[in-house]
């Protein structure tokens, strides 16, 4: 095992960046958020006491094992789900329902199959009452930015997974949202495409005035993309730790093996894969096979 630096150690540049971020106004404020299912008899608390402030132009990733409620968390942020108690404020105003100021990108693409690529991007613009000429011109600009101008008249089913997700990003950004919420957006992509899409997303984020709230269960993805990483746990559910990512920007794929990258990743691994009491109990019973000819270990 390599000797890794402390993941909390920040270079002066990174520390300066975080102090700059912390001076910015809070965009999304989460206060004592709780989500539970069922009634008092058989109440299942997904998470509680979740509090975090996401500042303007920050890239925050939520990571956690399955069942930790990370999807629920951002569905509440998107206004598609309701919290049991606590509140989320966007620019100081409580979130009550879905709204175009919170753009959303889903894992399943959710492009409208009956609309061409350009018409998909135009959807939000039309909903906001822009006339078709303006919507058309703006949609083209956004498609230009994600590099898909040449397929603007194709239908979604003609595109690859990575292209579909770029359209979905363009469609969400076309509304000029305050925050872009992404629910495991690259989860369905193959490893190579996923890697490209991550670098892509960082470039877009640099160019567009938007804050990003990102969900993943991929440790590399979390470390590569984010400023801060919010780790959720299960049993009991809630925030394990909020990590300030010491990997300096601009990010590149070369950093994947840098000491600070590995240090954060190692810490995430500890937090997420820490065996909880329950998991210890139900260990998978191992059936001893009588004739295992060739040992694998």
């Amino acid at each position, binding site marked *: 095992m390599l000797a890794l630096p402390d993941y909390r150690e920040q270079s002066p540049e990174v520390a300066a960046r975080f102090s700059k971020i912390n001076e910015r106004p809070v965009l999304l404020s989460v206060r004592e958020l709780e989500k539970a299912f069922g009634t008092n008899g058989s109440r299942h608390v997904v998470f509680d006491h979740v509090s975090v402030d996401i500042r303007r132009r920050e890239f925050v990733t939520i990571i956690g094992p399955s069942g930790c409620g990370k999807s629920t968390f951002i569905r509440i942020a*998107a*206004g*598609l789900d309701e919290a049991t108690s606590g509140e989320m404020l966007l620019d100081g105003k409580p979130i009550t*329902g*879905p*709204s*175009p100021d*919170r*753009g*959303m990108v*889903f894992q*399943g693409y*959710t492009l*409208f*199959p*009956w*609309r061409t690529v350009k018409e998909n991007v135009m*959807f*939000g613009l*039309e*909903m*906001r009452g822009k006339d078709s000429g303006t919507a058309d011109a703006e949609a083209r600009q956004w498609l230009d930015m994600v590099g898909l101008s040449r397929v603007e008249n194709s*239908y*979604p*089913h003609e595109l690859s997974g990575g292209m579909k997700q770029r359209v979905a990003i363009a*469609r*969400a950004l076309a*509304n000029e949202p305050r925050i872009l*919420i992404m629910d495991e957006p690259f989860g369905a992509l193959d490893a190579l495409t996923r890697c490209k899409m991550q670098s892509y997303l960082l470039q877009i984020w640099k160019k567009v005035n938007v804050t990003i709230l990102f969900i993943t269960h991929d440790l590399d993805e979390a470390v590569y993309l984010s400023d801060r990483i919010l780790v959720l746990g299960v049993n009991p559910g809630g925030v394990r730790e909020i990590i300030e990512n010491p990997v300096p920007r601009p990010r590149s794929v070369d950093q994947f093996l840098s000491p600070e990258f590995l240090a954060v990743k190692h810490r995430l691994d500890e937090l997420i894969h820490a065996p909880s009491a329950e998991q210890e109990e139900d260990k998978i019973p191992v059936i001893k096979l009588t004739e295992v000819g060739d040992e694998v270990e």
Partner: protein
Amino acid sequence: MATRDWLGLKQDLPPRRNAVLTILSFVLPFALWAVVSYTPWIWHPLVRITDSGESEWMTEDMDVQRADFAKEVEKTKAAGVAPPQGYRVNPVYLPAPHNVAKAFVTAFKTPPRLPGEPWLHESLGHSIRTIVWGFLLSSLIGVPLGILCGTYRFFSKLQEPFVEFFRYLPAPAFGALCVAVLGIDDAPKVAIIVIGTFFQQVLVIGNTVRKVDPALIEAAQTLGARGWNLVRRVVIPAAITDIYTDMRILLGWAWTYLIVAEVVGTMSGITYFINQQARYRNFDNVYAAIFMIGIIGLSSDILLAAFGRVLFPWKRRLARGKSLIEWMREPGSAWRKEPPNPRAMAALAKA
């Protein structure tokens, strides 16, 4: 050729085999019919008398049971007189394929026996008019109601339990009532088709709309769509291709109600034609008319499928294996000439 290739569990067949099987699906029943019609020793339970001989009761061109014929032959032989002669035939209600094929032309050319009776093409036209009116009227209310039921729980709970009950009431049961209310002409016939179609339509379309991916609706909401816009711009377009397929299936069901509808009040349309021809014992015309219904049904479905491709360019295939023309037009089908790949052509030209 291994059987495995033909009988792969839920495996697609190559286009050529699809074509072979599709043709066989028509050829086999017709072949069976031809075998029964043209092989004198298969079935043919009757004997047509060509020469009555000294038989007391047989006359020429009479069809008698084979057993009776044999008895008569024995009887005349025993009496020492000339036996009757004849050849084996099928009953008049099973005409041979070529007779029915001929009837396809002659049925249109034969003038009606009674003055004022419709020609065949008039009968067919009448039937198609009845269907179209019934289906249009039903759809006019059924489709919007189905969409509302599929979209809003409110309408679903308010309508569907009753509709579910009502659809079990057989449409023909309303025949007498329709005549009492609407008279004996076309109105009660249209009403029967409406009753037969409408309730299924609401339920089927309601179900189709309910199946719209909720993620699409959520995505639209986060893009700022709400209320009526959500229905008009997301729910309906997302369901429209499946609704279209539903409509094609429902139109097929409407045809089955047609025959019932046409005996209500004054008998009319193709049913009247079939009945009259059966009365005159022109069974070749009866078969021809029945097949015509099938041909009209299938070809209208193929036309609608082709029209669907024009309407919904984002759906390459509307309903898998639904009708002939669809797999004929699928890429790679033996029936379809692929246009040359333009990029490959350009590369070739450069080289």
